[in-house]
C-alpha cells in the first residue's frame, strides 16, 4: 500500500522540480542571478548522469569530467571561431587569437597551417558541427572506453581507477596541445550561440530556458529509461552481475549502453555550460571536479535521479551564497568534507533516502500504525 504513497510522492517531487525550474524567471528578474542558477542546473544534469551510472549501473565513474570537458571544448571551439577577436586577425577566415601568439614567424594566418594541428579546427567554423561533436565525441569515447572495460569484465574499484587515470591523461593531452587548445588558459572570449538569427547572450532569459528545458527533458528521459526493461536488467547487473549472466543477459552490452548514455548527458552538460559561462578550461578535467560530481550525487542520493540533481543544485547554491567572503568559502569546503564523511557513514542513500524514510513514517502515522512497521516494508533496493 505504501508503494502508492511513494509513487505519488515521487511524482510530486518531479512536478515541483519542473515547475520551479521553468517558473523561476517569472519570479527572478535579475539576469546575473538567472545565469548563476543556469550553471547550477547544468551541474544538476551532471548529478543525473552520475546517479545513472553509479546508482543504477553500479559503475563508479571517477572520470565523468572527461566527457563534460570534451563536450565543453568541442562547442567552445565553434564559439571561439565566431567571436569578434577571431574575425579580426587580418584574414578572410576566422583564426583564434592565441594561435597567432604561438605561430612561427611567417606562418600564414589561416586555420590550415598557422600552427601544427590547427587544421583540426577547420570544420568547427560551422556552429552545428561543434554542437554535434559536443555530444558525438563523448559518445564515441565512451563506447570505446566502455567496450574495452566491460568486455574485459573489469569491475568495481578498477573501473574507478581506470576512469580516474583516463581523465588525468586527457587533461595532460589538452594542456600539452597548447598551440591548438591554449593550454592551461583554455578557450576564453567566446562568441554567443546563434540559432536562426537569434544570438543567445548568456545573460538572457532565453538562454536560461535553453538550459532549464534541457535539464527537464534529460531528467524525464533518464527516468523513463531506467523504468524500461533494459533499465531493470541494468539494475539486476548492478546487484549481481554473475546471476544476470547466468540468466542469459549480455551484461557488458547493458553496461556499455548506460555508460555511454551517462557520457552523452555529461557531454551535453558541457555544451550547455560553455553557452552560459563562456569559457572552457582544463580544470574541467581535474580530479577534484569529477569527484565533486560524486559528492553531489552522494549527498542528493546516489540511487535517485532527481535526488542527485537536487543535491548538485543545492550544494552549489549554498556554496555560492556563503562564498561572499574568502574565509567562509574555505569553511564551507570544510563543512562539505565533514558532511560527506557523515553521509557515507550514516546516510548512504542521501537526501532522497531521508525523504523516503520521512514519507514512510508519515504514511504509517496517517494509518495509525507504528512507524517501524513501515520501516520494515520500505523498499530495500538500496
Amino acid at each position, binding site marked *: 500500500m505504501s508503494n502508492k504513497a511513494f509513487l505519488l510522492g515521487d511524482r510530486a517531487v518531479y512536478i515541483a522540480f519542473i515547475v520551479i525550474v521553468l517558473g523561476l524567471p517569472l519570479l527572478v528578474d535579475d539576469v546575473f542571478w538567472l545565469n548563476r542558477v543556469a550553471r547550477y542546473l547544468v551541474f544538476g544534469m551532471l548529478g543525473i548522469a552520475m546517479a545513472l551510472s553509479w546508482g543504477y549501473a553500479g559503475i563508479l565513474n571517477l572520470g565523468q569530467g572527461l566527457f563534460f570537458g570534451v563536450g565543453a571544448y568541442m562547442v567552445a571551439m565553434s564559439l571561439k571561431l565566431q567571436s569578434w577577436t577571431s574575425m579580426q586577425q587580418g584574414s578572410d577566415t576566422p583564426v583564434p587569437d592565441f594561435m597567432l601568439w604561438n605561430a612561427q614567424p611567417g606562418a600564414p594566418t589561416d586555420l590550415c597551417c598557422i600552427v601544427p594541428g590547427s587544421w583540426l579546427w577547420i570544420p568547427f567554423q560551422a556552429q552545428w558541427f561543434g554542437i554535434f561533436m559536443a555530444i558525438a565525441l563523448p559518445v564515441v569515447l565512451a563506447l570505446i572506453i566502455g567496450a574495452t572495460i566491460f568486455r574485459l569484465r573489469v569491475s568495481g574499484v578498477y573501473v574507478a581507477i581506470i576512469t580516474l587515470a583516463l581523465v588525468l591523461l586527457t587533461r595532460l593531452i589538452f594542456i600539452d596541445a597548447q598551440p591548438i587548445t591554449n593550454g592551461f588558459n583554455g578557450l576564453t572570449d567566446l562568441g554567443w550561440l546563434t540559432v536562426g538569427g537569434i544570438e543567445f547572450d548568456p545573460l538572457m532569459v532565453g538562454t536560461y530556458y535553453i538550459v532549464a528545458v534541457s535539464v527537464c527533458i534529460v531528467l524525464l528521459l533518464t527516468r523513463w529509461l531506467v523504468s524500461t526493461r533494459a533499465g531493470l536488467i541494468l539494475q539486476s547487473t548492478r546487484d549481481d552481475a554473475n546471476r544476470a549472466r547466468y540468466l542469459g543477459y549480455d551484461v557488458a552490452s547493458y553496461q556499455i549502453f548506460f555508460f555511454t548514455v551517462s557520457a552523452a548527458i555529461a557531454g551535453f552538460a558541457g555544451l550547455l555550460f560553455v553557452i552560459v559561462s563562456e569559457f572552457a578550461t582544463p580544470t574541467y578535467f581535474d580530479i577534484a571536479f569529477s569527484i565533486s560530481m560524486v559528492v553531489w550525487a552522494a549527498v542528493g542520493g546516489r540511487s535517485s535521479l532527481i535526488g542527485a540533481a537536487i543535491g548538485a543544485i543545492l550544494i552549489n547554491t549554498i556554496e555560492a551564497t556563503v562564498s561572499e567572503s574568502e574565509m567562509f568559502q*574555505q569553511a564551507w569546503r570544510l563543512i562539505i*568534507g565533514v558532511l560527506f564523511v557523515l553521509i557515507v557513514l550514516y546516510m548512504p542513500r542521501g537526501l532522497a533516502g531521508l525523504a523516503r524514510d520521512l514519507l514512510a513514517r508519515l504514511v504509517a502515522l496517517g494509518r495509525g500504525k507504528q512507524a517501524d512497521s513501515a520501516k520494515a516494508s520500505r523498499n530495500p533496493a538500496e
Partner: protein
Amino acid sequence: MFETLFIGLSLTSVLLLIALGLSITYGAMGVINMAHGELVMIGAYTAVLSGIYLGFNIFAAIPLAFLTAALLGLLIERVVIRKLYGRIIDTLLATWGVAIILQQLIRLEFGMTFFGIRIQGLGPGLQQMRVPSYLMQPYEFAGIMIQPYRTFIILVTILLTVLTWFLMYRTSIGVQVRAIMRNPQMAAACGIDVRRVSAMTFAYGSGLAGIAGVLLAGFRTVMPEMGANVVVDGFLVVVVGGVGSLLGTVLSAGLLGQLNGIVSVVYNDIIARAVVFAVVIGIILWRPNGLFSFKSR
C-alpha cells in the same frame, strides 16, 4: 645515460615511499585511502612546523612526522574506516571527505583564522622546509655529479623498504597481517585480533606517508593541496604492482619511475606523465590484479 637513470631512480624512490604505505593499507585491509596524500602533506607540514618552532632539522623531523601521521592515521581508522570494512568504494568516498577536511584544517590554521590568529607555517600559502646545505650542494665523485639530497632520499627509501619487508615477513605481527590479507575471517578464527592488527597496520602505513612528506618537502614546495597530486600516482603503482605484494610494489614503482624519467628526458614532463597513465591503464586492463598478485581462493 647515468644521469637519466639517476633521475628515474629518485622518481622511483619518491613513488615507492608513497606507494609503500598505500600498498600495506590497501593490501591488508582493502581500504582505498584517498587521504593518504593528505597524510603525506601532514608529514611535510610537521617538518616545516618543527623546523620553525622546535628548531628540528630534517633528521629529527623524520621520526616526528612518522609519529604524527601514524597517530592521525589511527584516529582516521577509529572514527571512519572501522565502520566501512568490506565496502571498498565507500572507503574511497569517505576518505576523500577526510582528505578535504585535513586540507581545510591546514588552510584555516585549525580554525584559528576565524579568531584572527595566524600561525606561522600554516595557512593557504606556500611553505618551505630548510634543508642543510651539505645535502643540497652537488659534488663530483669519479667524474659523475652526485646530488646528495636525491641520494639521501634513495637511501631512506631502501631502508624503509627493508624495514617494512622485515616487519611483514620476519616478525609475528607481520605473519598476522599477512594472514588477515589472505582471509580475515580465518585469521580471526585462529585467534588473531583483526581489529587491533588492522588499526596498527593502518597507523604504520600512515606513518610511512608522513616520512614521505618530509622527504618531498625537501625538493617541492609545501602547500595544502600537495597531497592530492601524489595519491593518484601512489595508487597506480600499487594497482600495477599487485595488491598486497611488496615486491610487486617495488618493481612497479621502478618500472613507472624509470619510464617517467626516460620519457621526460626524451620529450617532456607532461608527455612522460601521459605515457605513464596510458601504460598503467593498459596493464590494469590486461591484468586487473596487477603484475605480481598472489592467487586467492
